[in-house]
């Protein structure tokens, strides 16, 4: 299996395959190293568990899929042709049991006649519950590798880049295009050249060429010397709008411990122009058992000899429909192999074939019918030579069925394709984006259409998904005429290789059956990614945190010191409770809520949305944003307000305060903050750009502290040294020398204040407030207590009761609407549907049985039609009696009615009585001094 060409200088690399220790040379792909170690059987196919070897030398490899690495670093379904061996690499074959050599799953191959394309559409009928059985079976039978169960220990990076020219492909055409960009005909441009291989050169690494051995190095030096960027081991995985191309750079090989911690980098490259020098993929030939180890693409065989010094066979038959395979014959012969025969499908010899005939036995009108041998070894090739069956002893069959240009990126860019009759392949045509295809991808070598001589049932087209010629014929016979239907019925091209080696063969067969041309048969759509992309690369550096940074409140350190239980609220982390001693969350929240009702509590409301609106037209502007009147608000006063979408439905609520004649503060919910900012910007920039107003998002400028309870006024008075503002009034003061804005506002149902302070100075104010509260027997409280308090008071919350489906009337807020109109949503409110009977309305619920399950349906019987649902459940703060808020059809006319809060999935059915949605101080007397 080795050859004299194989370099042996330098240190050998140790690796294992299925636990067996082996050695590789520096620069070997795993495929090359396995061949050098005499390994021909590398994997098992997806469906029939057929023995498979190495067919290609590139990313298009459909057969030699292995799992690389261990633990969380394990990467399944890695192409052995696309991983470079490093010291300690661990590779395992997959989709076999108990071993690669003895795989019991191969029984599926024996049953292949019963498992044709689409058999599952005809098999898995019956009662729905049987699907649980089918699913168990199908999931265990489904092949390829297993995803690791451990967490990925590596890091991933995402980086942007901008360039004038992005060249994809580091072969001769790509190198020339890049040099033209930096110091050639288009000199001075910012150029990025990407190559998915570890080495530049492309076909030059495989072929004898006139450019000289140093040409690749000199071109690379010119690119780098002129400021260009070269990224090797980097695949252009997707082409998006506006010439945005995503690249995936492998910094570490699959399974390898990254030197600097980062395993892969996802690049977002915005290019002025993209040049695709992506080359061609050689096509296999369909014949019986063409998937047997020992059948290899012609150029791959040449690559293993010339680049890696590995001779993949000693007795070689070459089957071709083009001239390129003659170079393979010469290369293998030079390396010591015996060329048993060249089977040329063409009827007459081309000049290249004529020239070779003196050295090799060349048969015209010849093609393989079958590859014969064992599971790991090819022994002979049966061929049709001018209609006569002939057999050749051989251990390698190198095949070339023509060349398919790599047009994936061109097509992803929205480009069209033309069909080349000469090459029997699609080539890049016009594109709306600034992309150009050069080199062999634009001009593939000519090739003859091929006939299938072998048994269609064992002549494979899609090697990964075990789709045969017979499967395509079956799909056609069953009426699947469209290539898109054919694809989905047979699963052709739907494996991880996305049909790189199978599409054209399948299209040719479909066209032949339909008696139409290949372009008339159509082509399926190429979608990103070009090759599989690790999920971590898409997630980026924060893949462990769902890709999102945590937003910290200004008082983060204070809450952390107070032993807060944290709760995510969007990207924010907010204190949920402040447990003392051994309290759990529920006990802590109840103590905190009762303290607010009995004495005083304080909480962090910094995350509330806040907007400062100023200018001569500020009041007019706010009367568009808010559905309540604003203009008549006196300076120093505030009011509750809510906001509507264009369709008249409420989407947020808050308060509006008149700070000065032409300056207001608008607050709204934390959860709706970004949406509110967008809405304000929309009204300002789009609906009324003529207004003399400035609306600035000051959400983070101010930290907010709410202080609530019957002793809140006394605590605040002690802090500021003067009488605090009355309910819905504001005042300015200082706390420990820090200027603060005081708003008399309550969310808890108690006399309460919100203290706003510039966030950078909030620490001392919080500390002073905590001392004043503690002095009066109070405490800090978190979101859990706040939720209990607001439910008891009957305040709505965005996402709970304000679910985007309710009108002000549904919420019982119609009386607050601005009678002068002019607000966003006024027109939408007049729609008859918003006043029709049966609409959900906000109500309260009292339990007759026990705790009310949140989210439960409201039904007349335990199991019957839903009339509404429970939006939020809690209990009366002091007595502990269960209560809830709910949305109920025609709810306000159903006071006193008894229903079930029904949750069949939790087997909870609680009897409830409908009440008004206010369980505490309905008259609002506790707000008054």
């Amino acid at each position, binding site marked *: 299996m080795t050859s004299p060409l194989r370099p042996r200088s330098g240190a050998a690399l140790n690796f294992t395959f299925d636990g067996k220790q082996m050695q590789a040379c520096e620069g070997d792909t795993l495929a090359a190293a396995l061949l050098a170690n005499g390994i021909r059987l590398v994997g098992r196919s997806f469906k029939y568990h057929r023995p498979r070897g190495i067919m290609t030398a590139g990313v298009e490899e459909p057969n030699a899929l292995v799992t690389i690495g261990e633990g969380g670093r394990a990467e399944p379904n890695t192409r052995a042709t696309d991983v470079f061996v490093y010291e300690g690499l661990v590779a395992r074959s997959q989709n076999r049991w108990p071993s690669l050599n003895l795989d019991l799953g191969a029984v599926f191959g024996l049953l292949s006649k019963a498992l044709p394309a689409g058999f599952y559409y005809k098999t898995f009928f019956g009662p729905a519950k049987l699907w649980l059985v089918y699913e168990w079976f199908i999931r265990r039978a489904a092949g390829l590798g297993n995803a690791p169960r451990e967490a990925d220990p590596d*890091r991933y*990076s*995402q*980086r*942007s*880049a*901008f360039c004038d020219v992005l060249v994809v492909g580091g072969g001769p055409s790509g190198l020339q295009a890049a040099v033209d960009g930096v110091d050639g005909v288009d000199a001075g441009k910012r150029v990025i050249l990407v190559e998915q291989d570890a080495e530049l050169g492309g076909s030059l690494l495989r072929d004898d060429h006139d450019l000289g051995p140093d040409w690749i190095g000199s071109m690379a030096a010119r690119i780098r010397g002129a400021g260009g960027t070269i990224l090797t081991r980097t695949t252009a995985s997707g082409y998006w709008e506006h010439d945005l191309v995503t690249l995936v750079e492998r910094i570490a090989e699959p399974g390898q411990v990254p030197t*600097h*911690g*980062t395993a892969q980098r996802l690049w*977002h490259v*915005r290019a002025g122009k993209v040049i695709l020098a992506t080359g061609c993929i050689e096509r296999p030939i369909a014949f019986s058992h063409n998937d047997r180890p020992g059948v290899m693409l012609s150029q791959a065989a040449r690559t293993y000899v010339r680049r890696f010094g590995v001779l993949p066979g000693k007795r070689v038959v070459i089957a071709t429909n083009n001239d390129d395979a003659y170079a393979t014959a010469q290369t293998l012969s030079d390396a010591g192999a015996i060329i048993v025969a060249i089977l040329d499908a063409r009827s007459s010899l081309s000049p290249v074939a004529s020239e070779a005939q003196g050295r090799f036995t060349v048969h015209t009108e010849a093609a393989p019918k079958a590859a014969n041998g064992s599971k790991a070894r090819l022994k002979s090739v049966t061929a049709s030579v001018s209609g006569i069956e002939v057999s050749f002893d051989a251990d390698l069959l190198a095949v070339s069925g023509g060349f398919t240009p790599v047009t994936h990126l061109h097509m992803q860019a929205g480009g069209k394709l033309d069909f080349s009759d000469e090459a029997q392949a699609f080539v890049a045509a016009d594109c709306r984006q600034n992309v150009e295809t050069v080199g062999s991808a634009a001009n593939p070598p000519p090739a003859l259409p091929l006939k299938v001589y072998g048994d269609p049932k064992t002549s494979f087209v899609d090697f990964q998904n075990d789709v045969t010629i017979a499967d395509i014929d079956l799909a056609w016979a069953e009426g699947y005429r469209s290539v898109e239907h054919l694809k989905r019925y047979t699963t052709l091209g739907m494996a991880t290789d996305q049909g790189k080696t199978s599409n054209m063969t399948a299209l040719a067969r479909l066209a032949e059956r339909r008696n139409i041309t290949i372009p008339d048969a159509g082509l399926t759509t190429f979608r990103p990614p070009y090759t599989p992309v690790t999920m971590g690369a898409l997630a*980026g*550096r*924060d893949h462990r945190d769902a*890709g*999102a*940074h*945590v*937003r*910290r*409140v*200004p008082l*983060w350190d204070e809450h952390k010191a107070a032993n807060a239980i944290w709760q995510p609220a969007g*990207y*924010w982390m907010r204190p949920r409770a402040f447990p003392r001693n051994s309290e759990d969350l529920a006990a802590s929240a109840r103590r905190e809520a009762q303290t607010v009702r009995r004495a005083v509590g304080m909480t962090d409301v910094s995350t509330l949305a806040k907007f*400062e609106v*100023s*200018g*001569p037209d500020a009041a007019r502007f706010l009367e568009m944003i808010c559905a309540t009147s604003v203009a008549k608000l006196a300076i120093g006063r505030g009011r509750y307000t809510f906001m509507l979408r264009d369709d008249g439905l409420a989407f947020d609520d808050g308060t509006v305060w008149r700070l000065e004649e032409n*300056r207001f503060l608008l607050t709204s919910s934390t959860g709706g903050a970004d949406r509110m900012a967008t809405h304000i910007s929309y009204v300002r920039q789009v609906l009324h750009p003529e*207004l*003399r*107003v*400035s609306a*600035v998002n*000051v*959400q*983070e*400028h*101010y*930290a907010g502290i709410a202080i609530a309870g019957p002793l809140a006024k006394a605590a605040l008075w002690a802090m500021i040294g003067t009488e605090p503002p009355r309910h819905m009034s504001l005042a300015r003061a200082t706390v420990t020398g820090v200027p603060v804005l005081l708003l008399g506002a309550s969310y808890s149902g108690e006399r309460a204040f919100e203290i706003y302070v*510039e*966030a*950078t*100075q909030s620490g001392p104010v919080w500390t002073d407030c905590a001392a004043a509260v503690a002095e009066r027997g109070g405490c800090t409280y978190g979101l859990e207590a706040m939720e209990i308090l607001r439910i008891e008071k009957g305040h709505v919350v965005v996402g709970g009761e304000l679910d985007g489906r309710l009108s002000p009337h549904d919420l019982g807020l119609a009386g607050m609407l601005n009678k002068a109109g002019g607000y966003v949503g006024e027109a939408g409110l007049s729609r008859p549907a918003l006043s029709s009977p049966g609409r959900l309305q906000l109500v309260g619920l009292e339990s007759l049985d026990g705790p009310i399950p949140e989210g439960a349906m409201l039904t007349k019987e335990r199991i019957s039609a839903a009339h509404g649902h429970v939006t939020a459940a809690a209990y009366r703060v002091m007595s502990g009696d269960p209560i809830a808020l709910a949305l109920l059809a025609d709810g306000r006319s159903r006071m006193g009615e008894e229903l079930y809060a029904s949750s069949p999935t939790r087997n909870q059915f609680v009897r409830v009585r409908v009440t008004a949605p206010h369980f505490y101080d309905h008259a609002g007397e506790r707000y008054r001094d």
Partner: protein
Amino acid sequence: MIEVAISTLPAAPLHTLEIWSNAQAVAKRFQEAAAFALPPMGQSAGNAGVRLIRFEPTVWLVEGDWTGLEPVLGDDGALTAIGGGIVRIALSGTGWRRLLMEGGVFDAENIAFGPGCSAATIIDHVNVRLHVTDEKQCIAYVPSSFAHDLIAFWKAAASLA
């Protein structure tokens, strides 16, 4: 490893200045009062006491002494304090351009983005405003809530790149 030092600057007065009418007249009044012109889009201008950075067509970020600006604006614009919600982070060293490409969407490596230039962009999903103070330093204005995590992100990116 990216050659860049990441440091948090002390809190400073920051305001937005928005002009909604009579822009030419305001610009003239401003130049007379400040002795320098309002900077154009994507640029900054200032003196020892105050610097204005234009990030939006009608909005400037005012850094420093803002006390003389309200009379200049009159009824044609407004100042609003925002400094409590922004952390200023200095990215110093030859590698600041490279660092900003990590998780970024803005062409910070374009040499035209030089001293005096500004941009509003997204870095790893966080809205950030940038101001180049000299060839070896860029100031990032980061929302306070994201500052801790973004600094950690930058430090990791600088050390792992």
